[in-house]
């Protein structure tokens, strides 16, 4: 369809331009000005800050006495300079730590991070726990330091980074006897977070191909429990932005991120909206709420086909604005507007909670309201699904009865000249049309077969006309 091609071109233009702009700005700037700004906030003028020097790199801060020679009062350093290997959920977390000559942490300031804002709302409170602690002590998460709920990877990365870098500075710059880092255990790859998403996608794909409603609901339930409740990790536009910014988490600590991204992209390119239709935890919640509304016999909100089609552009608008804003700002904070992130992260402002409740209430009255009109990652997935290798097609025996149009819960089928036309970016592969078709003429088929057939029939038509 022409409109999908047009939307894909706009998406590619915004994504590529935005990513290039972001990387150009990154190449022009470094952490020094952020470090200087943070140092100015910590030391208000009575101290003299020496330029960043030495190995390990650090700022030496002196108390300038008019009569006495300079006395070292603190050492400040960027934790990333000393522990570049430690990454959070979506990349490095850069902190400026200030340590007294006796080894007490005087202050810690966040310089830069790429974590999802919904999960790190309490980052300030978390970091303030380090203040006043001696670097010789241990910084074990859950024992010495309370982690951020649902942001264990971020909490662990901060604790390990502060612990390791502070001890390094303590030993090498301040000549203190501080021992070894407490929480720096070698990380091992968690295979369970590779196997579980694989099983999840397999169940979803089997449900789609086998027209098995039970498998579809099983995958939705498993997605809700595993991705939503346990891991609070979903395919979101934040990941898309981070990919554009080339901010990737460590594979060993976060294999689920890679599995989700790769499996979603593969399934989109091969079958279509498998993730949106059969795995997304928020979609599951919305479907359950909608069916609950029907059980309670509450009136369903119905909109005309024309307005629905136009309203669907809103989600593309949201996607484009979010992408452009994120690349302009230089982090994924603008992308953190998705209702499911707020719901499953369980951290939000009052406006955030009001927004989620509003969306959930609307889901009771209209099937997948969020997915249909607002989901930015759904919009992106739709653009890819439009180019998938296998698609649902109608056989030549189709009589144009219009049953498929009526049963499609997302309104992805439209009757044009008594022939059904599928809007693939909207199709969630629920198989309702395939199940209910009285002539059973709907089936999955390779897209290029159709093109070849169409070409063939057109050629035949042309030949017949010539004859």
């Amino acid at each position, binding site marked *: 369809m022409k409109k999908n091609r047009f939307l894909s071109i706009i998406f590619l233009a915004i994504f590529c331009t935005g990513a290039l702009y972001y990387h150009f700005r990154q190449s022009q700037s470094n952490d020094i000005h*952020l470090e200087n*700004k*943070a140092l100015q*906030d910590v030391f208000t003028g009575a101290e003299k800050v020496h330029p960043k020097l030495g190995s390990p790199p650090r700022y030496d801060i002196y108390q300038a006495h008019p009569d006495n020679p300079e006395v070292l009062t603190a050492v400040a350093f960027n934790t990333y300079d000393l522990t570049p290997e430690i990454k959070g959920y979506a990349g490095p977390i850069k902190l*400026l730590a200030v340590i007294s000559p006796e080894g007490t942490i005087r*202050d*810690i*300031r*966040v*310089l*830069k*991070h790429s974590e999802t*804002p*919904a999960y*790190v*709302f309490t*980052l*300030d*409170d978390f*970091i*303030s*726990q*380090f*203040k006043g602690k001696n670097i010789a002590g241990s910084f074990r998460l859950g024992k010495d330091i309370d982690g951020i709920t649902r942001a264990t990877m971020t909490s662990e990365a901060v604790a390990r980074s502060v612990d390791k870098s502070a001890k390094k500075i303590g030993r090498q710059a301040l000549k203190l006897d501080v021992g070894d880092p407490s929480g720096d255990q070698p990380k091992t790859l968690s295979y369970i977070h590779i196997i579980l998403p694989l099983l999840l996608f397999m169940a979803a794909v089997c449900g789609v191909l086998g027209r098995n409603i039970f498998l579809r609901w099983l995958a939705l339930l498993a997605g809700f429990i595993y991705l939503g409740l346990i891991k609070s990790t979903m395919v979101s536009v934040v990941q898309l932005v981070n990919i554009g910014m080339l901010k990737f988490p460590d594979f060993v600590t976060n294999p689920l991120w890679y599995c989700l991204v790769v499996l979603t992209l593969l399934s989109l390119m091969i079958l279509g909206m498998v993730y949106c239709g059969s795995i997304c935890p928020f979609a599951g919640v919305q479907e359950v709420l909608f069916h609950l509304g029907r059980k309670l016999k509450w009136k369903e*909100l*119905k*909109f*005309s086909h024309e*307005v*629905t089609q136009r*309203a669907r552009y*809103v989600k593309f608008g*949201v996607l484009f604005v*979010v992408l452009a*804003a994120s690349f302009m*700002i230089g*982090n994924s*904070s*603008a992308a*953190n*507007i998705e209702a499911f992130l*707020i719901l499953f992260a369980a951290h*939000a*402002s009052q*406006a*955030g909670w*009001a*927004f989620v409740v*509003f*969306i959930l209430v*609307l889901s009771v009255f209209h099937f997948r309201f969020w997915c249909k*009109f*607002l989901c930015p990652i759904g919009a992106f997935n739709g653009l890819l699904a439009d180019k998938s290798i296998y698609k649902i097609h109608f056989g030549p025996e189709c009589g144009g009865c219009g049953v498929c149009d009526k049963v499609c819960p997302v309104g992805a089928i439209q009757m044009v000249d008594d022939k059904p036309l599928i809007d693939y970016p909207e199709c969630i592969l629920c198989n309702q049309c395939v199940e209910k078709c009285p002539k059973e003429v709907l089936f999955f088929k390779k897209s290029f077969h159709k093109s070849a057939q169409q070409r063939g029939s057109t050629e035949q038509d042309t030949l017949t006309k010539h004859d």
Partner: protein
Amino acid sequence: MTNTTKSGDKLLIVLLVLIVLMMGQIMKENVASIRMAVLANGAKPKVDVDKVKAQLRQAGLKPYEAQYWGIPGAQPQKD
């Protein structure tokens, strides 16, 4: 087009405008939260004011000396 669908369409437009405004507000809050964390107000010291006040009282200081703590820039009364 029925009247019900017409009114439904108007409702959809109103709902979408409202939701987009809410999303804008959330986006603004998120951007501000990151900026605040990264720029000026990094990690704040956690002071248990009541505990410190109690310690001051134990140390023999008069209670009124602590009452100005909550006001930024305020000075204690001079005896």
